[in-house]
């Protein structure tokens, strides 16, 4: 029944607490059954849901928590299973998290007074109390404290996500290349498709439809096709995005959204495609209506 002991890497936060050193301290947890120690006497911990899933742990279980493999450690009770935050830096790492109270952590690792980082949450609302704004608080702490620096959470987020912003810029470049290439492709397709209608256009001109009428019809049709195409494309993109998110959120056990289809993106796509439709329709149509109708129908 007890699963084999698993090595745990604890990069841990007890709500506001970070690990004593910047390097993660290896811990060891193993389930124990049956348990005969008085339940009330035990310390409590929280594990994250990936660990719970991997080791088959549930709230109320008692496990052994030790700083190194094979050492005795403590018997502790799991009282919470935590969800992971939507933090890109947590996604790809194959690690588990355990949260324990700071004094307990210090006792387990045998290294006290080694807090490297901690977070402070302001309980006041920044909109009511300007001094509660994160940058103000950080500035106040930096003035008063010695030996460490405070950063607002947003600055930390920017710092830790710089890699992702490079990746993002890279994606954007790929997107632009894709759009330019497909625009040229679509232009050619429209020219070909409209050219297939030479005979019909010629017939329309022969029976007395003006150049403007024919051009308007072609542009209208190209625009409609572009509109329907872009809406279908947006729906397809939304579905693909949903599948990608569903798959990777399951794979990495994170609420992080890997792809986004925002109204802005949909709007951009629709406008771009309408523009392309109008332009390609105009170009293709102009070529046809400038050709003599007899030449269009072919004699």
């Amino acid at each position, binding site marked *: 029944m007890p699963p084999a002991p698993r090595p745990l890497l604890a990069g841990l936060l007890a709500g506001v607490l970070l690990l004593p050193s910047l390097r993660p301290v290896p811990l060891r947890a193993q389930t124990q059954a049956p348990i005969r120690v008085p339940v009330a006497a035990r310390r409590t911990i929280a594990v994250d849901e990936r660990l719970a899933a991997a080791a088959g742990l549930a709230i109320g279980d008692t496990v052994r928590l030790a700083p190194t493999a094979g050492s005795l450690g403590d018997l502790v009770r799991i009282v919470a299973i935590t969800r992971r935050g939507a933090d890109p830096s947590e996604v790809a790492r194959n690690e588990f998290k355990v949260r324990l109270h700071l004094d307990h952590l210090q006792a387990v690792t045998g290294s006290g007074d080694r807090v490297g980082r901690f977070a402070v949450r302001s309980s006041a609302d920044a909109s009511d109390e300007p001094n509660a704004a994160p940058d103000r608080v950080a500035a106040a702490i930096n003035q008063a404290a010695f030996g460490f620096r405070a950063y607002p959470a947003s600055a930390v987020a920017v710092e830790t996500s710089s890699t992702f912003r490079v990746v993002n810029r890279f994606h954007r470049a790929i997107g632009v290349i894709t759009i330019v290439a497909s625009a040229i492709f679509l232009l050619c397709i429209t020219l070909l498709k409209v050219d297939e209608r030479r*005979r*019909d256009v*010629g*017939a*329309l*001109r*022969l*029976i*007395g*439809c*003006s*150049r403007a*009428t024919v051009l308007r019809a072609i542009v209208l049709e190209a625009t409609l096709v572009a509109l329907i195409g872009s809406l279908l494309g947006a729906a397809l993109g939304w579905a693909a995005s949903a599948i990608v998110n569903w798959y990777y959120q399951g794979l990495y056990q994170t609420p992080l959204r890997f792809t986004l289809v925002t109204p802005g993106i949909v709007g951009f796509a629709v406008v771009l495609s309408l523009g392309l439709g109008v332009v390609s329709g105009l170009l293709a149509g102009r070529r046809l209506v400038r050709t003599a*109708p*007899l030449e269009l*129908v072919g*004699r």
Partner: protein
Amino acid sequence: MTSAAPVLSAQAIRRAYPLAGRSVEAVRGLSLEVMAGEWVAVVGTSGCGKSTLLNLLGAIDRPTTGRIVIAGRDVSALGDAEATRFRLTGVGFVFQRFYLMPTLTAAENVELPMAEARVPRAQREARARELLAYVGLDGRADHRPFQLSGGEQQRVAIARALANRPALLLADEPTGELDARTGAEMIALFDRLNRDGTTIVTVTHDEELAQAARRVVHMKDGVIVDDVLRRPLDARA
């Protein structure tokens, strides 16, 4: 309906095509007058310039020199926009290969020139129904060209050519794509149209079609070589 004024008057028209560096004349100094109510069949061997002539008369093409007046209007030097407008309302054109819009129904094909001429919807729907009934297609108004036989498609094309009440109906080999029996039906339809007052010029090498016309004009090498009045206008058969 049968006034003595010429509906069509062509004087010394020529049409030269540049061909391999030199110029080839398909119509070389041809004159022709057609009275209101006439039905003229232009006949001649293939390549003698019949289609070229008809395209000139229908403002599809412009003569190199010469003058063409149709219903009082000089059409020999019209710009593209005016020529297009003239094709819409001044003449009706029936082509050998029908040239219907494949995506439109028979009724919509007939309505098309009226829509382009800004005829109100109710009016053009009524006229399309009337014309389709006239050419014997009452039941096929909602059919698309691919659902119609060649003869039926040509009937739709004739109804379309008449939509804007042209002064003159021009037809280039209207039986060319049809079998003998359907061709005979088409000839009967032209005959009925002419008896009801439509002025018609058909170009053909179909002997039967030529025989049905009131007047037969023979062409050779771009000029008229014979002009036979088979049935005068006042001789009602």
